[in-house]
Each structure stands twice: as structure tokens, then as C-alpha cells.
């Protein structure tokens, strides 16, 4: 055994450096920000954030060149024996994660520096987490999926506890860490079962093995369920959501925005990879399981959101419920008619949800600079002293509720379309449950609108809100994206067709 190992010459794998250029730029950028931060003085802290933002933008350049190089469509670039694949699916999501990261940097700029809270380390951890997400998009192997997941999670645990003198922030970090590690352990156990059954860690190999035996073995079922549960924590699906509201409330608000959008999206990316590449033959297992998760997540998330008086907690539960909607297509993804529209629906939902939710957080950050409060009532009278912010927030909330012509309607449309494409009693039932949930969700989004438009300012303080330029940029980006996605959804719905995901359903 040992002799054969030593006898074979180690052949270094051929690395397509163009293909992994975004990851390389991020890695270099992480080092650069860390080094530069050592040498800038307190007064020049803005350099760090600017540099972090630049790194993220530069990393999107190779994505553009890869997408236009023509090699990707139809012929995905595959590295390390198919364990790391750059296809259209991964490129779109990588670009999404980098842009989310950029907006989060814009949101953080004022917040973190004014708090004198180690901006250098903050941006390094943020970039690391984004690097993990970018890797997740291309990972096609249990090991690389796991590494990407840990890479994106571990910096998040620290970021959640960033306001270290605040006990709530400490609670946020600890809760997130403990439950995150627990979820990782469950998932790892599931992965080991899958490896034991399929004797390979390659996702497509697992997919092929599950077919080969003709029927599912008990160990495979367990493996699938554990893996889904593990990611269920990451996307805060009910009943694995309990960490989310406390973590969201305690973490610095830009990080909350980051968690509610990027971390969640990364969890969904992993779930898509599993469902489409590793489990295509196991739909009898994952479909009912995800169906139940989706129904529970959207309904319970909504009902809890209705009761919240704190805007951060309300948006936390709202994002739990939105997660339920994103899960919907996965519950029918194995049905032949719905596989394509399901993938498209999730991709479109993730993009639109990212723009809208980041926008909502940006408004909350802007308003909290004046009110220093997270209560919904603190938004009272906003229309009187900050009409622009009010209109933007109305757009974002209406988009989250799915009211045309703002982006969210198209996201909702896509998930309805997917489950109805699947048809059958399960599909129609899910659609009707989701329709009822849309109305419940509207009720709490409306509460916020009512506060802003119709109530007086709680303390009578109507001095205008001063918004720093970086926050204005974030508001502009997310606001324009929300409106444009709603009026011309065609520009994003081109992405996410089944052929974009190399290896989906054994293709």
C-alpha cells in the first residue's frame, strides 16, 4: 500500500488559473487589507474599507471575462477531476456574492469606523466569508462543499460578536457559533454516511451511486436527511431557525444584513448542489422533507414576525419566512416538468431578495443613525422628515411582500410557477399555502409602512437624517435594482436555466 503510494509520481494537477481568478484575487485582497491596515493611521481608516470594496469589485472582473470567453457555456471549466467546476450557474452566483459583499462594505463604512471597532480585522473577516461563499458556488465534492461552508461560517461567528462590549452581541456570536457547529456536525455525519454508501465524495458520483442500486438504502436516506438538516440551520429553516432572531438582533446591523442575505444564499447554493447533482434519484426522500420544511418555515416565520415590535427581529423572522418561499421550488425540483423552472425560480429569488433585503437594512441603518433605536415605533413620522428614505423603504417592503411593479413580485411569481409546473395535489396545496402566507407577510410589512407614513415622530424630533455618501450609494444600488428587476425582470431571468448547472440530473 505504502509502496504503491510512494511509487506513483505525484503529478501536480493542471490548474486553470483564469477559472479560479476570482478566488485568487480575493485571497490576495485579504492579505493586502490585513497588511495595509497595519500601516494606516486612525484618521485614515477609510482606506481599509475602500480597499475592501475595491477588492470585491476587481474580483468580479474575471467573472465577466470568464462569462464572455465562450468556453463556459456548454463546456464548463472543470478542475481537480470535477471537484471544482466553473459553469454559468457558479459564475452568476459568484457575481451575486461579490456584489452583496460590496454593498455590505458600503453599509459598514460609517458604522464600523465610527464605533472604532477594529475595521481592518472586520473587513478581512468579511472578505474571508465572501471567499468561502464564492468557493461554495463551484464546489462539486462533499469535501470542498464542507470546506467552503466552514470557510464562510467561521468568520461569521466572529463578526456576529463584533460589538464585544455589548452582551447582546456576545449572545449573538455564541448562539450562532454553538448552533452552527452543531449543524456542521450533523451534516458531517450525514456526509460520512453518504460517503460510506456511495464510496465517493464527488457529488455526481454520489448521484450515480444512488441510482445504481435501484432502490434507496436506509443509510442513504439517513445521509440525505442529515445533510439537508445541516443546511437547514444555515438557511434558518423552521425548526432550525432559533438562532436567527437573537443573532440578527445582537450582531452589528451591516453584519445582520450580510447574514440575512449572503449566508442564507450560500446555504441555498449548497442545497441546490445537493438536490440537483447528488440526490436527483432520491426525490422520494428529499421532496416530502423539503415540502414540510418549506411550509413550516414560511408559516411559522410569518406568524412570529407578526408579533414583533423590533424592526430587526421582524426582518429576521421575515427573512426566515422568505427562506420558506425559496425552499418551495426545491420541494418539487425532482419532478420532471418543474426541474428547470425550480432552479430558475431559486436563482431569481436569491438575486431579487438580495437587492431588496439589503436595501431594507440600508434604510434601517440610515434611520438608526438618528433614532438610535430598533423599535418599529421609532420609524414614526419618517415620511415627514425623510420622505426619500420613506419612499425607498416602502419600495423595499412592497418588494418583499411581492407587490408589483417591484422586484419581489417576480421572485414570488417564479416560485409559484415552479410548484404549479410540478402540478399534482402537493404542488397545488403548496401554492395555496404560499398564497395565504403572502397575505400574512403583507400584514407586517404594512405595519412598518403605516408607522412611517401615518404616525407622528415618537419624540417629536424631526431633524432630517444625515446619510453618509457610502450609505447613499448602497441605497441607490439596491433601490434601482429593486425597481428595475420588477419592471424588466427579463434581465435576470435569463440566468439559472438547467443547462447552466453542469451535472444537474446527471447531464
Amino acid at each position: 500500500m505504502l509502496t504503491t503510494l510512494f511509487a506513483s509520481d505525484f503529478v501536480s494537477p493542471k490548474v486553470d488559473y483564469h477559472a479560479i481568478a476570482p478566488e485568487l484575487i480575493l485571497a490576495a485582497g485579504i492579505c493586502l487589507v490585513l497588511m495595509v491596515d497595519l500601516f494606516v493611521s486612525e484618521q485614515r481608516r477609510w482606506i481599509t474599507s475602500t480597499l475592501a470594496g475595491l477588492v470585491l469589485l476587481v474580483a468580479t472582473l474575471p467573472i465577466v471575462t470568464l462569462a464572455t470567453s465562450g468556453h463556459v457555456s456548454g463546456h464548463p471549466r472543470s478542475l481537480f477531476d470535477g471537484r471544482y467546476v466553473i459553469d454559468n450557474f457558479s459564475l452568476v452566483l459568484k457575481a451575486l456574492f461579490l456584489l452583496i459583499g460590496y454593498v455590505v462594505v458600503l453599509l459598514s463604512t460609517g458604522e464600523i469606523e465610527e464605533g472604532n471597532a477594529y475595521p481592518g480585522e472586520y473587513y478581512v473577516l468579511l472578505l474571508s466569508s465572501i471567499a468561502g461563499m464564492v468557493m461554495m458556488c463551484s464546489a462539486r465534492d462533499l469535501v470542498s462543499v464542507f470546506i467552503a461552508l466552514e470557510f464562510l461560517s467561521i468568520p461569521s461567528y466572529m463578526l456576529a460578536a463584533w460589538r464585544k462590549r455589548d452582551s447582546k452581541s456576545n449572545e449573538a456570536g455564541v448562539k450562532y457559533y454553538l448552533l452552527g457547529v452543531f449543524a456542521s456536525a450533523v451534516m458531517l455525519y450525514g456526509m460520512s454516511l453518504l460517503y460510506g454508501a456511495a464510496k465517493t465524495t464527488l457529488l455526481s458520483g454520489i448521484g450515480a451511486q444512488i441510482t445504481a442500486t435501484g432502490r434507496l438504502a436506509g443509510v442513504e436516506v439517513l445521509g440525505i436527511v442529515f445533510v439537508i438538516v445541516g443546511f437547514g440551520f444555515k438557511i434558518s429553516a423552521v425548526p432550525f431557525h432559533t438562532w436567527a432572531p437573537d443573532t440578527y438582533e445582537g450582531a452589528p446591523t451591516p453584519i445582520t444584513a450580510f447574514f440575512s442575505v449572503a449566508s442564507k444564499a450560500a446555504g441555498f447554493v449548497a442545497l441546490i448542489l445537493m438536490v440537483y447533482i447528488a440526490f436527483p434519484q432520491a426525490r422520494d426522500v428529499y421532496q416530502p422533507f423539503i415540502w414540510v420544511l418549506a411550509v413550516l418555515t414560511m408559516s411559522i416565520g410569518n406568524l412570529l414576525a407578526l408579533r414583533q415590535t423590533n424592526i430587526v427581529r421582524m426582518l429576521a423572522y421575515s427573512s426566515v419566512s422568505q427562506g420558506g418561499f425559496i425552499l418551495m421550488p426545491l420541494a418539487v425540483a425532482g419532478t420532471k416538468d418543474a426541474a428547470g423552472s425550480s432552479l430558475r425560480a431559486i436563482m431569481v429569488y436569491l438575486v431579487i431578495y438580495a437587492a431588496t433585503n439589503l436595501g431594507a437594512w440600508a434604510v434601517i441603518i440610515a434611520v438608526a443613525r438618528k433614532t438610535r433605536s430598533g423599535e418599529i415605533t421609532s420609524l414614526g413620522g419618517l415620511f415627514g422628515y425623510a420622505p426619500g428614505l420613506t419612499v425607498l423603504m416602502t419600495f423595499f417592503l412592497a418588494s418583499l411582500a411581492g407587490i408589483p411593479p417591484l422586484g419581489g413580485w417576480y421572485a414570488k411569481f417564479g416560485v409559484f410557477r415552479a410548484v404549479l409546473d410540478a402540478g399534482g395535489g402537493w404542488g397545488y396545496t403548496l401554492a395555496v399555502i404560499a398564497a395565504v402566507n403572502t397575505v400574512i407577510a403583507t400584514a407586517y410589512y404594512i405595519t412598518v409602512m403605516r408607522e412611517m407614513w401615518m404616525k407622528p415622530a415618537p419624540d417629536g424630533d424631526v431633524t432630517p437624517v444625515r446619510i453618509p455618501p457610502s450609505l447613499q450609494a448602497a441605497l441607490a444600488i439596491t433601490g434601482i435594482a429593486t425597481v428595475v428587476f420588477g419592471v424588466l425582470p427579463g434581465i435576470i431571468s435569463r440566468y439559472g436555466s438547467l443547462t447552466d448547472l453542469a451535472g444537474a440530473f446527471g447531464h
Partner: protein
Amino acid sequence: MNTLTSNNWILSLGTFLPIAGVIVMMFIPKQEEALIKGVAILTAAATLVVGIVTLCLFKYNHADLQQFAVSTSWIKPIRATYTIGLDGISLPLYILSMVITLLVMIYSWNHVPEPGNPKAFFALMLVLQVGMAGTFIAQDLILFFVFFEVVLLPMYFMIGVWGGENRQYASLKFFLYTMFGSALMLVSFIALFIVTKGNTDPNGSFAFTWFEAHGSGIATNTAVWIFAGMFIGFAVKVPMFPFHTWLPDAHTQAPTQGSVILAAILLKLGTYGFVRIALPFLPQAAVKWAPFIGLLAVIGIIYGALGCLAQTDMKRLIAFSSVAHMGFVMLGIATLTPLGVNAAIFGMVAHGLITGMLFFIAGSVKDRYHTLEIRRLTGLLKQMPKLGWILGFCAMASLGLPSLAGFWGEFPAILSAYNPLHGEGLPFGGLSLPAFRTYMVVAAIGTVLAAGYLLWLYQRTAFGEPNPEFVVDTHLAHSAGAAANPHDDEHVDIHDVGIYEWIAWTPLLVGIVVLGVYPQLLFKVTDPAVTHLLGVFGGK
């Protein structure tokens, strides 16, 4: 289907022009109130001019065809198209929406309700106009859905910000009801698209023509369920009994302008949806549902009338009368005959003019007396003879006096219930004669009740001596009284119809008379389109 595509820029221009006005208004500072109002009214006027040009270019001998039609791709992956067009059914409602918006804005010149902020108020009205006009020209289900929903938020804010004391409750109720309906409606639309194989057929799309061609081929059992989703979506908007409970609250709390737009146009989006979408796309289900719709319609007529008799608030009374009137419209639609649907469309326009007018009057009464309590209002005719007479005129029109517009909505609707779709050889079967003839009798009783509640309202408010609490000695009011109590909200300033009111009201009053005397003006336009649309039922 044949379409006429000449001058096809005009519909998009007419629909989206108000957006340009909103953008201009965004850059005007909030303090320049007169400028803001001017720009808004100018935009609405320009939109109406485009509408009038549309009226002139419309080819009346081809009223059954979609004219000024545009059909381009919009969201390719889901096969939603930007297909628009205008036929004899859409034309009157499209123009009505433009007229009402302009008149409401003129009325608002010196009637911006509390808490002010004309910039937002006028901008919301312009956005509303985009949604309303767009709904009437959309010839694609997704486009229709988007426009249908665009009106939701502006109306929510109009009620919620500028409304009466109980405005927050009323606006929330309005919003949630409509949202519930439209969520189920969207599910139905997508289900219809998938069941007709619109997603796999190479020619499939969300365009109306696709569903007109393929909707009737769906198995009846499936179609009945898809119809159910649409029914809830549209019935909430109409509103039909038992989905009507949001309406009295919304109307009572809304500012005058909101009430007028709500009554004149927004309610019609629901009935228009039935005529344009539910009936022709799913005729097999429509035949099954029609007796049920007819039943709810006559329940609405009687319930609305009884509700009116019980009201103590003038505005709430008018709101309940809307429930009754929309019952007549729905009864006409439920007969599935050209006569009934023609009557329904006439009823929509007539109700828009008359009830819009009644809400204007209610608003003006509230402005002067600060109350709408019928018990406290007496002697309008003595105190404000012009307003009193206009109220009497509109009450007569509303109760369906022949030679005024309201008559031509109600009478043919009742008549059509005598002869609903029935006979031999109909592709989807006919309707039960006894059931509809019973509805006819009940609806006829409803008109008697309508005369009852409207005349009683008029008698109580207009006749008799003015209520002493509102009779102000002019000397006192202008010297000591006003000076002593300058901030008194209850300060009563009774004056007759003002100049802005005259400008806003005259077109409506003229319209009521003209359509009443010469109903053919409207029937001539709608009939070809209605006959064309209902051809699928095979009736006469």
C-alpha cells in the same frame, strides 16, 4: 385574432405619461405647492388630451377588434409579453379613468385633505392613474396582474394618510383583502397558463389570445377550480357579497378624492376582470359558476339596500349603495348574454359617474359642516340650494330614473336576467331559467329599495329647515365669533358650490344626462366587442 396596429404608440403614451409628471414633481421642492399642483394637473390634462386623441382615432366600425395593438416580448423566459390593445369594452373605462383623475385633481386644488403635503398626494393620484389605465389596455395576463396591483399601494396610502379618524384600520383592511384576492388570482393565472400548455407549446404565451383559443379546452373540473381563484381575486375588488366588508370602511375613511377614484374606477377593475378574463377564457367554468355569481349578486343588491337604510352616515350610505349597484353589474355579467354584459359595462360607467359625483357631494358637505351624520344635516336646499339640487339630481340618477345614466345600467341588467344564456346546442350548456327569473324579481325589488333609501336620504338632508347649530349669523362669524375662536375646528363656513367644484363636477353631470338621454352612444361602442367576446358561449 385580428388587431389593428396603426398609431400603436398612443396607448403606451397615454398610460405612462403620468409617470413623467411624477418624475418632474420629484424635483420640485415641497414648499412650491402651487407649482406642484399645476404640474400634476397639467400632466393629467395632457393625459386626457392623449385620451381624446385616442377617442378620435378609434375606428368605431371595428370596435370588436383590439386597436392600437402592440405585441412585443417583455419577460422572455416566462413568456410574458407586452401586449396591449383597446376595444369597445376597454375604451369607455380607459377614458373614464383619465377624466376622473383630472377632475379629482382639479377638485383637489383647494381641497387637499389633512395633513396636507400636496406633493405626495398628487403624485399618488398620478401613479394610480397609470395602474388604472394600464389594467384596461393590458392584453397579457401578467401585464394585467402587474397593473392591477400597481393601484394597491397608492390607494392604501391615500386612505391611510389622508383619511378620516379610523383610517389606519380601514386602509389595512382594504389592503389585506385585496392582497388575499390577488394572491389567489395569481396562482390561478399561472395554473391556467400551465394547464393550457402555454409553457411547452411553441406558440404559448401569457397573451389573452392564447387563453381565448385554448382556455375552453380545459377539462371542466380543472377549469372550475381555476375559475374559483380568479373569482375570489375579482370578487374582492368588485366587491361582491360576502367579500364586501372592506368597502364601507375604506369609503367612509378615505378622503373625498380617494372615495371618488375608488368608486369610479377601482371597483371596475374587478368587474372588468370578469368580463375580459374569467368569462371568455373559461367559458365551461363560467357556465357552472354563473348561477352562484348571480345569487351572490342579488344578495348583494338586497343586502346593500338594507345596509343603506340602516346607515346614519351619508358617506357610508353611499358606500353601501355601491355594493347594491355593483350587484346589478354582476347580475348582468352572470347572465352570460350580450345584453347582460353590455348592461354591466354601461352600469360600470354610469356608476362611475353617479357614485363618483355623490362622493364629491359628500366631501363638500363634510367640508362645510364637518359632519356627515344624516341626523344633523337638514335643509341643504335652503342653506345651499345649488348643492342641494345637485344632490337631488344625483340621487335620482342613482336610483335609476329613466333618462339619466343609472337607468341604462340597471334596467337592461334586470331584463337580461329574464333571458339568460339558455337553449339548444350551446357548446357549454345553458343556465337555469327559473333561477335567473327569480333573481330578476329580487333585483327588481332591489330597485324599489334603492328608490327608498335614496329618497329618504334626500328627504332627511335636503328638506326642512337648516339645523340651527349650523346657522351662523354672518356678522358674528366675521367679527366677534371668528376673532374669539380662531382655531376652532368646528368653525362652520357654509357657502354654496365653489368654482373648483363647478369645474370638477360639470363634466360628470353632463355625462350623466348625455348617457341617460342617448345611451346608444355607449352601447354602440361596447356591443360589437361584447358580442365578439361572448361568441364562445354560442348564445344569441
